[in-house]
């Protein structure tokens, strides 16, 4: 098992958001997580990535058998955890290329590999830039600064392609994308699918899952997983919404 979440409870600002999550992700599997707005999907993603505004009050998370919650965010990343942000952050003054090379080198160093110089790195990313149709100008500009919504999302998947994680958590990478951009992103994600890499794909829409076909689908509602199934569950949800599910809080959307 790559990831094992057991009875995870988390709070923010005094409110309990996650109310006992159980989830197992095996190596090579793709899990989709769906659920109404505010149900805690991003909270779960952020907790897994190590954002400290969320306080874990109960439960545990094992990643490759190790206690993930004890690790600093950078150590999680170095061990192969990657989260594509629902709202990527703009970082003025730091060029996208420099940022990514620093990140990749930090990860390489952690694994006892030699750091890449600027030239080697450019060669390395060229193909991945093509895959995600990343324009040269997006690479020299400051990270996400002034990027359109779609460019930001593409940049997240591009980062995933460059950092080559073992566990990728994609938080609504499809929202805000037009159909062409959606195809580019899906192509990037599918190119990254492998038996050595697992993915948790958070989405509201079946349309992404037409391209990225999940092995399992879970419904998160009010901080709990209220239903799990195969890919067909996503289709059912698309038709019926969340209201029919036992224990589900009515969707507010």
């Amino acid at each position: 098992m790559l990831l094992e979440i057991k009875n995870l409870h988390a709070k923010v600002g005094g409110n309990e958001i996650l109310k006992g999550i159980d989830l197992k992700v095996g190596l090579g599997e793709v899990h989709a997580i769906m659920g109404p707005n505010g149900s805690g999907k991003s909270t779960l993603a952020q907790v897994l990535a190590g954002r400290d505004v969320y306080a874990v009050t109960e439960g545990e998370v094992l990643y490759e058998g190790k206690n993930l919650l004890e690790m600093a965010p950078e150590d999680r990343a170095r061990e192969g955890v990657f989260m594509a942000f629902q709202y990527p952050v703009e970082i003025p003054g730091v060029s996208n290329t420099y940022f990514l090379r620093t990140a990749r080198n930090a990860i390489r160093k952690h694994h006892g590999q030699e750091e890449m110089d600027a030239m080697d790195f450019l060669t390395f990313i060229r193909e991945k830039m093509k895959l995600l149709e990343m324009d040269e100008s997006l690479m020299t500009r400051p990270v996400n600064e002034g990027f359109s919504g779609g460019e930001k999302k593409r940049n997240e998947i591009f980062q995933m392609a460059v950092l080559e994680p073992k566990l990728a958590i994609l938080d609504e990478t499809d929202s805000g994308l037009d159909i062409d951009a959606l195809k580019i992103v899906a192509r990037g994600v599918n190119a990254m699918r492998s038996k050595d890499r697992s993915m948790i794909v958070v989405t509201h829409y079946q349309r992404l899952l037409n391209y990225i076909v999940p092995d399992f689908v879970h419904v998160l509602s009010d901080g709990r997983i209220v239903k799990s199934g195969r890919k067909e569950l996503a289709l059912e949800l698309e038709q019926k919404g969340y209201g029919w599910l036992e224990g589900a809080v009515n969707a507010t959307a």
Partner: protein
Amino acid sequence: MTTAIKENLDVYLQSFRELERRGKVPEWLARIRTEAIERFLDLGFPTPRDEEWKYTNVASIARTPFEPAPAVPAERAAERIATHALAQLDCPRLVFVNGKPVPELSSLGGLEAGVKVMSLEKAVASGTEPVEQYLARTADPATHPFVALNTAFLQDGAWVEIPKRTALSKPIYLLYVTLPGSKPTVTYPRNVVLIGRESQATLIEGYLSLGDSAYLTNAVTEIIVEENSVLEYVKLQSESPAAFHVATVKMQQARNASAHATTVTLGARLAREETASVLDGEGGEATLNGLYVLTGEQHVDNHTTLDHAKAHCSSRELYKGILEGRSTGVFNGKIIVRPDAQKTDSKQSNKNLLLSEDATINTKPQLEIYADDVKCTHGATVGQIDAEALFYLRSRGISQREARNLLTVAFANDVLDKIKYAYLRERLKASVLERLATQP
């Protein structure tokens, strides 16, 4: 409630008498100095009751009996100079140790025809340079105690004269090194820089020291930028953590002259950096930028003045501060728009990054606008490292420390990126990075 400290001024009068006895200077200079000491004795050292010195208490300077810095053998400073941040700058340089020019450490080859870079004392003594015409005209000793003090005791510094229609291919570097002794010492560097019409120059002024006992650098630089000329001026202040540094840089710009100044403050226990430009001809452009990186108990007070005297001039100002430890910073940006200065376009911004809870900054714009058709904007921010940006970087594998440094350097680079001379820009970035990396 007094606005000035006038005790202990006798010491200054005594050393002035001594200086008078020793030095033979032309009558015009003797007169300027005498007027200046009288003015200084009259003004005394300012106290925080004086609005201009509200956040900077110079009582410790007033209290300390500084002695003139002794002459020291040049080789004692050679190694420090060889390893400082701008050591590899390939350009003509004039190096001063304890206020005195040191030919062995200087190199003035390769200057364009007619360009003069020499010791101010020599320029005065020569009788052939028009020093009298320019000295103590741009920086006025009458209103400023430290300018008065510097003028009273001025002996040496640099005289730089660039003739008309001359574009320098390399910067000119003036470097002041202090080797403090067992007792507190003082130097009074004085620079006079004249840029002839339609010329172009880069001027760098540097301050550093060897050793960590207390001393005072009281410097004044007067710069005249003639019609249609372009000046880039960069100051790097990396005095020792025990130093007092009180400096005034005053520029006077003629018609269509453009001056771009950047003041980088990394050193000194207490620093007052006054940078000012008078836009005294139509079509002038002035930029005053600054970066201060403080830690420990450091205090820096940036006082800037943009004086729009004539119409159709523009000015830009960006000062950024990074404060750690218990350091304190001040930014006071004065913009004067005189009645004649219609169509003035002026923008001021001061941004601060507080890296510790104990660091403080006082920031204040000071607008005096006497014309009606003008565009003046100003803004100030004080913030911490952006927690979301920090997490974003860490979530990609970058360590907390490196992520903080990356964000801090990015913040600083905003100022340094505007320096046009590329090699200097890169060297300054490296020294800021090094400075941040050595912070606890």
